[in-house]
C-alpha cells in the first residue's frame, strides 16, 4: 500500500460471487459431466475463488512488489515440486 487513496471493493458483492462459485462447484459434482470435466471445473472454480479472496480481501494489488514476490515464489515451488514427483509416484509405483 502507498500513501495514495485507494478504491475499496464492494466486499459483499465479492462474498456473493464466492458463494455463487461454491454452488457451481457443488452442482458440477451432481451434473452428468465426465470425471475429467467435473474435476477440471471444480479446481478452476477453486482457483477463481482463491483469486477473488487474495485480490479483494487481501488487497494484494495495492501491496509492494516485494509482497507479490514473497507470495508467488512458494506457489511456483509447490507447482514444480508436485510436477517433478508425478513420474516417480504416479507412474512408477
Amino acid at each position, binding site marked *: 500500500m502507498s500513501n*495514495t*487513496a485507494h478504491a475499496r471493493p464492494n466486499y459483499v458483492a465479492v462474498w456473493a460471487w464466492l458463494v455463487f462459485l461454491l454452488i457451481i462447484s*457443488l452442482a458440477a459434482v451432481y451434473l452428468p459431466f465426465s470425471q475429467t470435466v467435473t474435476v477440471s471445473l*471444480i479446481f478452476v472454480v477453486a482457483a477463481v475463488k482463491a483469486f477473488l*479472496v487474495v485480490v479483494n480481501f487481501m488487497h494484494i494489488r495495492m501491496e*509492494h512488489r516485494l509482497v507479490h514476490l514473497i507470495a508467488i515464489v*512458494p506457489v511456483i515451488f509447490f507447482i514444480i515440486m508436485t510436477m517433478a514427483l508425478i513420474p516417480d509416484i504416479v507412474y512408477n509405483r
Partner: protein
Amino acid sequence: MSTVAATENYSDNVMPIGKMGIWWFLASEIMVFGGLIGSYILYRLASAGAWAEMAHHVSTTIGAINTVVLLTSSLTMVLAHAAVEDENRQRAKLYLGLTVLGGILFLIFKAVEYTTEISHGFTPLAGTFWSFYFTMTGLHGLHVIGGIIANLALFVMAARGTLWPNTQKRVEYCGLYWHFVDVVWIFLFPLLYLSY
C-alpha cells in the same frame, strides 16, 4: 465503490516490518500446506479408484456449510478492517466479534463431522485417504484456532478501546492470516469433499 485513505504511512519503496513479517509467515505456510496438498494429489492420482470410494464417506453437506461459514467470516474480517480504517469503533468491534463466532462455528461443524466419521470407523488409521484427510483438516483446524485466538484478542482490545490509535495495523495483519486460512480451505474442500 467508495474511496478511502490508505492506512499505511510509508512510501512505495519502504514496507513496514510487521507487514513483511506476516507475508514471510504466509509464504512459509504455503509450503507447509503445499507439501501436504502436493503429496495428497500425487497419491490420489496413483490410486484413484480406492480413494474415490473412501471419499464418498465424507459429508459434502457439512463441508459446503463450513465453506460458507469461512467465506462469511472472511467477509466480516475485511469489513472489520474497513471499519478500523474508517475509525468506526462500534462496527469494528461488531465485525471482529462476528469473525470470531464464524471461526467457532466452523470448529463446531468440524467436530460434528469428525465425531460422525470416527464413530463409523473412519479413523486416521483407516487408510491413506483418511490419514491425509485428518492431517490436512486437523492442521487447518489448528490454524483456525490460532486465528480465533488472535481475533478474540483484537475484539477484546476493541471492546476496551485500546485498539486505537496506534495498533490498527494488527487488524490488517490478522486479517491477512485469516484470509489465508480461508484460501487453504477453498482448496481443501474440492480436494477432500468433491473429487470423488
